[in-house]
C-alpha cells in the first residue's frame, strides 16, 4: 500500500471524519446531486427532459436576450431594500438584547423566535387580512376617521413589508451575536481615552460587530433574493420576482433547461456573495461564543 493511501485511511479513521460522514453523504445526495443536475440541464436543448443530449449554450443566450433582467432587477433591488430597512430596525433591538435587557433578553429572544416556527404562509396571510380592502387597517380607518385606505395590498410596498417582516429575525439574531462579541472593557477603554458615545460606536462597536452585521445582512439579502411567497401572496400580479420565473419555467412552461439556467444564475449570484462572506469570517469564533 502506498504512503498516501495509508494517509487516507488514517484520515478516515479520525472521529471527526466519522462523525461528519452521515450528514455529508446525505447532503451530497440531496443537495449537491440536484444542483449538479440543474447545472447539467442548463446546457441541454430547450424543452428537453433528458440529460444525454449534446450540450449547448442556447438557453443562456435566450435568457439573456429575453426580459428576465427585469425580474432579476426587481429581486436584487427588493432584497437590497429589505436589508437597508432591516438594519436600522434591528440594530437598536439587538443592542438592547446584547447589552441592556439582562435576564429579559431570553424572553425577547423567545418572543422573536416563535413566529419563525409558524408557517410563513399563515403569517403572510395575516398581513393580507390587515391590508385587504375592508380588512383590519382599512376597516379601522373607516370606522375611526371615515377615511379609506384600500389598495395597499398587491403592490410593491406590500411585498417589501412582507420581506421585512419575514426576514427580520434573520437580521436580528446575527446582530445580537455580533454586538455581544464586543467586550465591555474595550468600550470602557475607549471612553477612558476620551471617546464620546458616538466615537465609541464608530471606532469600536461598529467595526468589531461587523461579522454579525455582515452575516445578518447577507443572510437577509440572499433569502429575500430567492423569496417566492411574499410576492405571490402580498404582491398579487404587481411584479414578478426571479423565483416566480424559475417556478413557471419548471412547471407551467415545462422548460427544464430554461428553469435550470435561471436557477444557475440565481445560485451563482447568491453563492458568490456567501463565499465572499465566509472567506472573511471565522465560524468557530462566532458560533462558539456564548
Amino acid at each position: 500500500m502506498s504512503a498516501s493511501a495509508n494517509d487516507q485511511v488514517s484520515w478516515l479513521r479520525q472521529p471527526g471524519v466519522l462523525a461528519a460522514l452521515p450528514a455529508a453523504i446525505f447532503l451530497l445526495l440531496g443537495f449537491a446531486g440536484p444542483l449538479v443536475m440543474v447545472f447539467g440541464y442548463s446546457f441541454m436543448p430547450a424543452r428537453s427532459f433528458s440529460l444525454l443530449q449534446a450540450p449547448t449554450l442556447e438557453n443562456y443566450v435566450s435568457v439573456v436576450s429575453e426580459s428576465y433582467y427585469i425580474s432579476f432587477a426587481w429581486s436584487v433591488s427588493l432584497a437590497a431594500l429589505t436589508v437597508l430597512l432591516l438594519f436600522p430596525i434591528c440594530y437598536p433591538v439587538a443592542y438592547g438584547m446584547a447589552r441592556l435587557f439582562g435576564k429579559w433578553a431570553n424572553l425577547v429572544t423567545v418572543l422573536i423566535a416563535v413566529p419563525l416556527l409558524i408557517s410563513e404562509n399563515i403569517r403572510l396571510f395575516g398581513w393580507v387580512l390587515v391590508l385587504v380592502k375592508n380588512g383590519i387597517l382599512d376597516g379601522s380607518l373607516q370606522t375611526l376617521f371615515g377615511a379609506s385606505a384600500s389598495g395597499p395590498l398587491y403592490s410593491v410596498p406590500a411585498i417589501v413589508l412582507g420581506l421585512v417582516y419575514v426576514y427580520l429575525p434573520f437580521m436580528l439574531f446575527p446582530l445580537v451575536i455580533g454586538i455581544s462579541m464586543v467586550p465591555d472593557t474595550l468600550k470602557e477603554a475607549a471612553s477612558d481615552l476620551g471617546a464620546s458615545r458616538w466615537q465609541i460606536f464608530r471606532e469600536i462597536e461598529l467595526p468589531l460587530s461587523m461579522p454579525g452585521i455582515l452575516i445578518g445582512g447577507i443572510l437577509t439579502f440572499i433569502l429575500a433574493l430567492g423569496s417566492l411567497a411574499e410576492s405571490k401572496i402580498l404582491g398579487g400580479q404587481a411584479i414578478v420576482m426571479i423565483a416566480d420565473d424559475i417556478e413557471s419555467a419548471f412547471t407551467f412552461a415545462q422548460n427544464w433547461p430554461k428553469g435550470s439556467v435561471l436557477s444557475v444564475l440565481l445560485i451563482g449570484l447568491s453563492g458568490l456573495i456567501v463565499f465572499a462572506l465566509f472567506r472573511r469570517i471565522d465560524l468557530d469564533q462566532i458560533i462558539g461564543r456564548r
Partner: protein
Amino acid sequence: MSASQSSRTTRSLIVIWTVTVIAFLYIPMVAVALASFSKQRYFRFPISRWTTEWYTKTFESLSVRDLLWTSLSVAALVTVFSVLLAFFGALAFARYDWKGRKLYQRLVLLPIFFPQAVLGLALLLWFSVLDVTTSWQTAVFAHMIWIVPIVILIMSIQVYSFDPALEEAAFDLGATRWQVLREVTLPILSPGIISGGTFAFLLSWGNFPLSLFTTGADQTVPEWLYAKMVSGYTPMVPTLGTLTMSGAAILILVIYLVWMALGARRRARMATNDE
C-alpha cells in the same frame, strides 16, 4: 459602562422600540385569529358577528384530518432523522479537530442560505430523473436538506461549550466509546438535542416552499392553506391557521418549561457541588 452610562432616555427608547417590533411580529397572527371567529364568509373588519362554527367545521372535516396526519408524519420523521444526523454532524462541526473541518463547516451550512423554492424545484427534477414518485416521503427527504444544517448549527452552539476533557476522563476511567456517549456526551448535550429537535419539528411543520414541489399528490397543511388563499377562500383557512399556531405555541411552551426545569436541576446540582 453599558448599563451605567447609557442614558435613561436612550434605554427607554430602545425598550419602546423593541416592544413595537415584537408587536409588529405578532400583528398578522392576531389578524388570523380574529378572522377565524368572524361569521362572515368573506372577512370584513370590524367584525360584526362572532362565531366558533368554523372550528366545529374544521374539526369535523375529514380532509383536514388527512392534512394534519400528513403534516404530522412528515414533521415527526424529519425530527427523528435530522436529530440523528445532526448530532454527529455537530460533533464534527464543533467538537473534533480534523483536517477538512473548516471546509465542512462552510459546505454544510450552504443549504440554509439557499433559496428554498429553487431547492424544491431542483429536488423535483432530481426525483423525476431518478424516477422516484413524489409523495409525503420525498417531502421528508426534501425538508431534511434544509433542516439538518439548521439543527447542526443549533446543536453546535451547545457542543462548543462542551469540555472534551470530560469524555477523556470517562475513557480514562474505563468506559467504552458507547458508554462515554451514553453516560457523558448525550446527557450533557441534551439541551442542544431538545432545542434542535423542537426546531426540526416546527420548521418542517410550517414549511411551504419545499413541500409545494416535493409532496406530489399528498398535501401538507401549509400547502392546503396556500391553495385556498389563492383560490377558493374559506374561513377554515384562518381557523386551521389559528389551530396550527396554537399547537406550535403549546409545543414551544412545553419545551421551554422542560428546558427551564432541566436548567434549574443542573444549576442546583452545580451549586451543591460548589459548597
